[in-house]
């Protein structure tokens, strides 16, 4: 089980309570699709992804980015049992969506960068450490049911 210090819990809940999901979610997913274009393979039915501008203005991608970011809320509410919390979603991503779990890390890195861009000076090394630890636990949990 993952141990969280009080400081880490405060940092993580602080970041999310001040987050504009409608802004950050789409930005993170868009960035992932542009920086790591092979991730587009999972979005064949989402419409026009033919260039960066198409991706940035694609409403399906934006909606999905928001959905994915809200998916992190589950972990926020269950920080002491993230592994069990994501068991179902892990099965979904493995059996139905067939997403290579390495992609979770790519999206997590893009989310970190988008949050860093948003928070500026406030995004201290300690905040980055707590945030990345949280994302790493989620990423691990999402990959747990793959076989």
């Amino acid at each position: 089980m993952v141990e969280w210090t009080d400081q880490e819990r405060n940092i993580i809940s602080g970041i999310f309570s001040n987050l504009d999901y409608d802004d950050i979610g789409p930005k993170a997913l868009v960035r992932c699709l542009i920086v790591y274009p092979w991730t587009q393979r999972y979005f064949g039915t989402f419409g026009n992804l033919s260039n960066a501008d198409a991706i940035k203005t694609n409403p399906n991608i934006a909606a999905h980015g928001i959905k994915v970011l809200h998916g992190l809320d589950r972990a926020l509410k269950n920080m002491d049992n993230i592994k069990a919390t994501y068991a179902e979603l892990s099965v979904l991503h493995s059996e139905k969506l067939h997403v290579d779990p390495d992609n979770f890390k790519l999206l997590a890195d893009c989310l970190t960068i988008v949050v860093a861009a948003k928070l500026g000076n406030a995004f201290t090394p300690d905040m980055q450490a707590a945030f990345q630890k949280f994302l790493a636990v989620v990423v691990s949990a999402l990959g747990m049911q793959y076989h």
Partner: protein
Amino acid sequence: MTTLTDKDKAIVKALWGKISKSADAIGADALGRMLTVYPQTKTYFSHWPDLSPGSGPVKAHGKKVMSGVALAVSKIDDITSGLLELSELHAFKLRVDPANFKILSHCILVVIANLYPKDFNPESHASLDKFLASLSLALSDKYR
């Protein structure tokens, strides 16, 4: 993995033009973050008296690292040859596990996003990520 296209090179050079005046600060911040976020990287610096972000050794070393990045930008048409000496240093003397180059690259990207949010758009991010990957590959070229 990565061939830098002419577009990548142009983007990297343009971005570097904007950020190079803050290179020392970027290097110090990136290194400090790396040591904090990925504590296993501290194993390479057990000889430093102070490993905290903003400390003397961290600042000095961050500056050194960024001068390596500057070198790679100047030799962007053949990074492997351009970084030959540094590769030999890292291979035979420092023996840094190449996995750590990815880690430091990520921290550099985080700092640039943090300091230059408007310039570090997805396209610039993609090209810079490729560039740092090429740099890392060149750095590990002489390992074996």
